[in-house]
């Protein structure tokens, strides 16, 4: 059951997504009737499932929402922009409720009250009835309106009932089978059945589509009349049914045709097994044909038993009978398989193994000195290509379209723009771009912040926009695309652009940059990423929630991504995030230091350079700084920082990697040599060993040896900066 519940929540996410899509189409005026149906069904299905799990808050709200949608569907309500705005809000609340139900967190009714009121206002007079009915919807179970089991429990003298049951033709036409009804009745207590044949015509005139049987049942039961009615619920209205309680509870009358004992193991006529067709009806007939009329018993040689349904006298045409819809709007659902994420991760790991193994194989083949055109080499070449393809396909299994993420963002836009009274339109593009699932999850927070930022700071107020000749409604664009093996996500607005004078001024005021330093536009834009820059002057309750762009950038970097800004005064600002397709591999620079091989994530390296004596400046008694184009960058000796060796006595001529820290500060990291640059498969270290300071993970190189992957940010934060050998200092453990 828990599994089904979990699957229900997954389905909810999908339904909420199609709900969003549908509403968006409606809002864009591109909806057809099927769109409305899709939206309706989404809400409807959520309600249905929620009911099954007793998620009452969700059921209640979904029901109200569904009612409103139904009005739109039946053209009672026009889906104007305002109505849709409300529906979007409803969708958001529905998503909240789903989440609350999933997390088992309490629901705050006040959060939905206002929207519910608005829906009521929308529905007008019908709302009240609906509200009534809504309470009524609570039934957790069946419609079979039974007082049922809890009826009179006085078994002392069990009441008995006389039931007269005369099916009408319709009963048979709808696939009902009196035999089963009688059998269900038998479950309630002892009973005696008589079949009246008064109206049964002679056999040669027997036409089964006309109800000719009347059963009289004597039933002794403590279950009450309600339970009896329940049995006949499905045939209510298509049969004559009389139930009367017998005053003296006596089993009376017609002992000679007492069929009751035979009932429990009802002789099932063979044909009844595929009962769908004519057979069971005939079987019922056989069974219940009273002994008084032996001549009516169909003989095997006689005319085949007529069936109730065969000649079908034009059954009443179903009223509501929509023809199979083949409208273009209907999309065939893509066939999908749900797979446990662990299995995929295992597959991803295994493919990682193959890649590593292959690198080792290639290396040994090379060492074996086989000629370049040998079959082994060409075979290996093909193998290499295949492996790459497999790796790519496997990575794609983990990939998901960014759509769900984008839909969350459209909610952010709706809410944040409403909060500050700006009219903002979000346009999304490339929703089907696929990114690793984990990346999507971890992108939500930074992207939320960026979107808020765009709405809050990027766009001008409605009035300002109009004054500068723009449309009052501001536009935010959210796009995703694949670009040279990476995913690029852009958030752009058509606002006022970055006010660089002001940004510079703030940075100077805060002591982030020296006042006399000349900065390029890009450099000024990048000041936004400095911690502590956050323009406190106008902290609104939106973007100023304690996070600045510096946090955004570190989150992106943690994903192996980069973020950049372009802005044009008066035209708008674009933030661009570039991310790796997966977290399982990393573009790395292979370096060596103190005879150890390490991998440095490429995205953290700004540039590499070889130090000249003039670049190096002594800073403190233990430390150096490097002069890089007139900015001073601390020098870190990787070998010393990792405890592999003592600081060198002279650093001139050494290779340094200029590494950018997440706060924009930089460090020059000394290595012995740069060996290679390539993709490596990331192997967690945490599970097998634990956290290692300065180290993010490990990987396996072509020679089968493990190389550690550096965590530059952690390394710099933890660094001692010691770059001068001194014997009196305690050696760092290694």
């Amino acid at each position, binding site marked *: 059951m828990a*599994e*089904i519940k979990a*699957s*229900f929540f997954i*389905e909810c996410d999908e339904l909420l997504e199609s709900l969003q899509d549908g509403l968006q189409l409606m809002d864009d005026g591109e909806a057809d009737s099927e769109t409305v*149906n899709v939206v*309706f*069904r989404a809400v*409807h*299905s959520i*309600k*249905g*499932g929620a*009911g*099954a*799990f007793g998620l009452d808050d969700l059921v209640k709200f979904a029901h109200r929402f569904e009612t409103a949608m139904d009005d739109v569907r039946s053209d009672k309500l026009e889906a104007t922009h305002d109505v849709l705005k409300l529906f979007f809000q409803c969708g958001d609340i529905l998503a909240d409720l789903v989440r609350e139900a999933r997390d088992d967190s309490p629901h705050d009714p006040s959060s939905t009250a206002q929207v519910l009121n608005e829906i009521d206002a929308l529905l007008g007079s019908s709302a009240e009835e609906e509200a009534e*009915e809504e309470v*009524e*919807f609570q*039934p*957790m*179970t*069946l*419609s*079979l309106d039974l007082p049922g089991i809890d009826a009179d429990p006085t078994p002392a003298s069990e009441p008995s009932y006389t039931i007269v049951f005369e099916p009408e033709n319709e009963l*048979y*036409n*709808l*696939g*009902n*089978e009196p*035999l*089963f*009804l009688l*059998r269900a009745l038998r479950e309630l207590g002892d009973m005696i059945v008589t079949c009246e044949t008064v109206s049964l015509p002679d056999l040669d005139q027997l036409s089964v589509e006309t109800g000719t049987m009347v059963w009289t049942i004597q039933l002794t039961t403590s279950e009450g009349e309600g339970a009896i009615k329940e*049995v006949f*619920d*499905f045939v209510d*209205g298509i049969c004559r049914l009389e139930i009367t309680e017998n005053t003296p509870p006596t089993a009376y009358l017609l002992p000679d045709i007492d069929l009751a004992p035979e009932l429990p193991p009802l002789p099932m006529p063979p044909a*009844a097994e*595929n*009962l*769908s*067709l*004519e057979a*069971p*009806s005939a079987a019922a007939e056989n069974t219940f044909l009273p002994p008084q009329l032996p001549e009516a018993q169909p003989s095997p040689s006689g005319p085949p038993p007529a069936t*109730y*349904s065969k000649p*079908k006298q034009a*059954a009443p045409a*179903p*009223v*509501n*009978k*929509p*023809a*199979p*819809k083949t409208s273009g709007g209907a999309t065939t*659902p893509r066939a999908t398989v749900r797979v446990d994420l662990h299995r995929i991760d295992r597959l991803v790991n295994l493919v990682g193994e193959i890649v590593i193994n292959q690198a080792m194989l290639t290396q040994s083949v090379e060492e074996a000195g086989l000629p370049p055109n040998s079959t082994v080499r060409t075979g290996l070449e093909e193998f290499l290509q295949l492996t790459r393809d497999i790796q790519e396909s496997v990575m794609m299994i983990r990939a998901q379209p960014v759509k769900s993420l984008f839909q969350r963002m459209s909610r952010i836009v709706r809410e944040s723009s409403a909060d500050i009274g700006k009219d903002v339109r979000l346009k999304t593009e490339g929703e089907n771009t696929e990114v690793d699932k984990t990346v999507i999850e971890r992108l939500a927070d930074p992207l939320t912040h960026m979107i808020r930022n765009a709405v809050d700071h990027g766009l001008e107020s409605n009035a300002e926009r109009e004054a500068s000749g723009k449309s009052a409604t501001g536009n935010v664009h959210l796009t995703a695309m694949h670009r040279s093996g990476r995913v690029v996500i852009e958030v752009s607005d058509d606002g006022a652009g970055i006010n660089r004078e002001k940004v510079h001024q703030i940075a100077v005021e805060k002591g982030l940059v020296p006042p006399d330093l000349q900065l390029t536009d890009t450099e000024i834009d990048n000041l936004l990423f400095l911690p502590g820059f956050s323009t406190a002057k106008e902290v609104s309750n939106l973007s100023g929630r304690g996070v600045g762009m510096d946090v955004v950038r570190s989150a992106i970097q943690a994903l192996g991504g980069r973020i950049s800004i372009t802005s044009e005064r008066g035209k708008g600002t674009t933030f661009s995030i570039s991310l790796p397709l997966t977290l399982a591999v990393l573009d790395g620079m292979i370096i060596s230091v103190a005879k150890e091989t390490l991998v440095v994530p490429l995205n953290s390296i700004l540039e590499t350079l070889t130090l000249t004596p003039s670049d190096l400046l002594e800073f403190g008694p233990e430390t150096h700084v490097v002069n890089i184009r007139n900015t001073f960058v601390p020098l870190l000796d990787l070998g010393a920082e990792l405890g592999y060796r003592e600081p060198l006595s002279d650093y001139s001529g050494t290779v340094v990697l200029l590494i950018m820290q997440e706060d924009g500060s930089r460090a020059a990291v000394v290595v012995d040599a740069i060996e290679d640059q390539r993709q490596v498969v990331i192997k967690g270290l945490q599970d097998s060993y634990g956290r290692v300071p300065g180290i993010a993970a490990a990987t396996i190189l072509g020679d089968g040896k493990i190389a550690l992957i550096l965590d530059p940010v952690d390394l710099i934060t933890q660094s001692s900066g010691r770059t001068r050998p001194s014997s009196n200092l305690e050696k760092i453990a290694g």
Partner: protein
Amino acid sequence: MQVLAVDDSRTMRDMVRLTLTGAGIDAHLAEDGIHGLEVLEDMVPPDAIITDINMPRMDGFGFIDAVRSQEKYKGIPILVLTTESADDMKTRARQAGATGWIVKPFDPQKLVKALKMVAG
């Protein structure tokens, strides 16, 4: 017993499947009316059919109609799964050719009971 259950909600399908298999009934599942007809075509005629009403491509009414219009399926009991308990619903279901109805969310025991009632 063989039962065909048609519902576009995976959750509902899962629940129906769980309920039926728990009662020793073979469940055949379909996602909408069209799919339901396809599945029906590929199987021995079931002992009963359970169908949702609101579904994409072909809804429950259309599905029942399509089933009932074929001679070989005319006598199959059909139960409608609906979230509406209103009498109106019963009337519509019956007009469409349904044998019985069950209100979602359903009580597993009652679903089985209802099936026994219409299909033995």
